[in-house]
């Protein structure tokens, strides 16, 4: 039983980290109608900035957690104003092409600035090591921290979307941009703000991931595929969908890797195929026009 407990906890920490990243992708699609291929690259930027702040400048993890996502959000504002704003009204496929180009540009820039090497970031002193939770099964303290961060974000995002004016404006802009504009909402500002917020979430995921995952030039490409699977399973453009998709994929990885290692490669895609077969819009998806 202790093995199962650890596997479930592990599923939760994989899933919640995926949620932090995928929810940004989903919000951006909901409001901007842009599928952001470069979302994983922004996650990678967050991790590299954390590496720079902590390993090269000797600053603390807390500083990295605050500064790196903000810096990436600023970069996102620049990207939005320089290129993205020209394609809001275009077909979704165009956004895929453009953001794929952005992904290549960011990937190569990262390699030019930080080199091709693999880097590691140490967790802060307080979060190192492991604790025994299920009998003698050890569980890393840092993974518990990831779970806490994920849960706090789930609660905060739910609050923002359902209880604050900013959240309602975002949802209004997502539902009907023309109507929102007619109601004196500055949708241009909203759109840029949402893109920056999505980037902030991606980079936050990157900073949180850095102390337990290798910081290398391919980390963004790996996470974007996972995030797309989350979105397909959960449903495009919906906040509960991102949460459901991330938790399902977390379970697939956590339990599949533990109990069905022979077919672990196949499982995420089986999950995706089953969802597409029975709920083509995803578990929580309401339809293509959301």
């Amino acid at each position: 039983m202790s093995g199962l407990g650890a596997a479930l906890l592990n599923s939760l920490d994989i899933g919640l980290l995926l949620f932090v990243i995928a929810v940004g992708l989903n919000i951006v699609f909901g409001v901007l109608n842009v599928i952001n291929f470069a979302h994983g690259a922004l996650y990678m930027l967050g991790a590299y900035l954390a590496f720079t702040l902590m390993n090269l400048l000797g600053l603390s993890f807390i500083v990295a957690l605050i500064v790196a996502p903000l810096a990436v959000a600023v970069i996102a504002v620049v990207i939005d104003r320089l290129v993205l704003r020209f394609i809001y009204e275009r077909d979704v496929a165009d956004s895929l092409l453009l953001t794929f180009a952005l992904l290549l540009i960011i990937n190569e820039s990262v390699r030019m600035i930080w080199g091709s090497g693999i880097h590691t970031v140490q967790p802060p002193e307080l979060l190192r090591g492991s604790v025994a939770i299920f009998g003698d099964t050890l569980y890393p303290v840092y993974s518990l921290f990831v779970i806490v961060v994920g849960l706090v974000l789930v609660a905060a995002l739910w609050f923002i979307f359902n209880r604050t004016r900013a959240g309602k404006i975002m949802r209004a802009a997502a539902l009907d941009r023309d109507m929102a504009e007619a109601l004196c909402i500055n949708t241009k500002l909203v759109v840029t703000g949402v893109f920056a917020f999505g980037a902030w979430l991606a980079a936050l995921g990157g900073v949180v991931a850095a102390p337990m995952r290798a910081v290398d030039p391919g980390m963004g490409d790996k996470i974007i595929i996972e995030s797309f699977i989350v979105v397909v399973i959960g449903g495009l453009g919906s906040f509960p969908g991102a949460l459901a998709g991330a938790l399902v994929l977390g379970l697939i990885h956590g339990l599949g890797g533990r109990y069905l290692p022979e077919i672990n490669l196949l499982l995420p895609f089986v999950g995706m195929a089953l969802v597409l077969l029975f709920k083509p819009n995803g578990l929580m998806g309401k339809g293509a026009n959301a």
Partner: protein
Amino acid sequence: MTKFNPRKLITSLAAASLLSAGALQVSADEHPIKLGAIYILSGSAATYGQFAQRGIDLAISEINDSGGVLGRDLELAIEDSQGKAAVAIQAARKLVYEDQVDVLMGLDSSGVAQGLVPTIPELQKPLIITHAATPDVTGKLCNAFTFRISTNVAQNMKAAAQIAAESDAKRWTTIGPDYAFGHQSWEFFGNALKDIKPDVELMGDTAFPRFGAEDFTPFINGVMDSNAEGVLISLWGGDLVNFVRQATNLGFFEKDMELMFTVGAATEVLTALEDRMPEGVWLSTRYWYDAYDNEINRNFVKAYIDAYGNPPSYNAEGAYAAVYAYKKAMEATGNTDGPALAKALKGMSFDAPNGKVTFRAGDHQAMVSPNWGRSGPMHPEHGIRTLEDLRVFDAEKVSRTVAETGCTL
């Protein structure tokens, strides 16, 4: 093309007369000899391609400074395989047909090698593989143009099995990437170990996480609960870095198990992990910079550290040695003709940092052996773990016979 063409002769004569005086010294043979290289230059494993390129650059600058090859300078054209076979095939064709390279070298991944090698004969240029380790390319997929200068999985696993047989561990399992390299490592290790020590148990529950899986926790927990006594770990690159850190957190290294990392002594990985690579585990590499006491190796290691600040990895050494192998072959044939060079490489011996190396005539596999050692204290200058109880195996003893490879050349 041998047909006599009077118009062409006249144009040639006219051109020759125009190019009189000093210009005549620029003969057709003085344009540089081009080496075409294919490595992973982007993504998680980009660091491997970068080390290889540094090895090549170092060899080229040494050779060009001392007069080049056949009086001509060497020049490098390098392409990114992205770790994908289809991309590597495109790159090889571009290098040969567009960039007009004279020879090919490279390849970081077994999957890429299995895809590319069968297409090499159509290009009529020799290829020296400097990293990819699948036994197939000097086995059932072998061909007249393909050579490998680095250790293959079969050689490395035969050496690994000897070390494993000396230990007390009886029940063995594996954690490896879910593609050719991980599966073949386990298969060759298991067969070799069974040969030496028939009473070992090769466990049925093995772990093959996806290449680039990021979170290895489920697999680590699986192995920890399996009561295995020995684990063969063939993860590499960023995967290995992730694995070691996550395994440390889960107390994996505190368990009493014999741990063997088949590519754990890659300096790319040791640099990233620093002292977080645990002490006392078996680490292997195709070449360890401190394992060979000869002049070529001393000069190579010193020049490499002077130029790049860290010790050379096996990938840098393989690429460096391949350039010198081509130099020797070109000097033997006196030209850069592809089929002639392939013939010259067959059975050729040359001096490399890891000693005298021979491309066996029967399968074109270099007679080289892996280096294994136990991770020791940190090196005071290089910032990576040292290797203790260093083992350099006899290539003849760890290589398959030509008949075993399945290669018929």
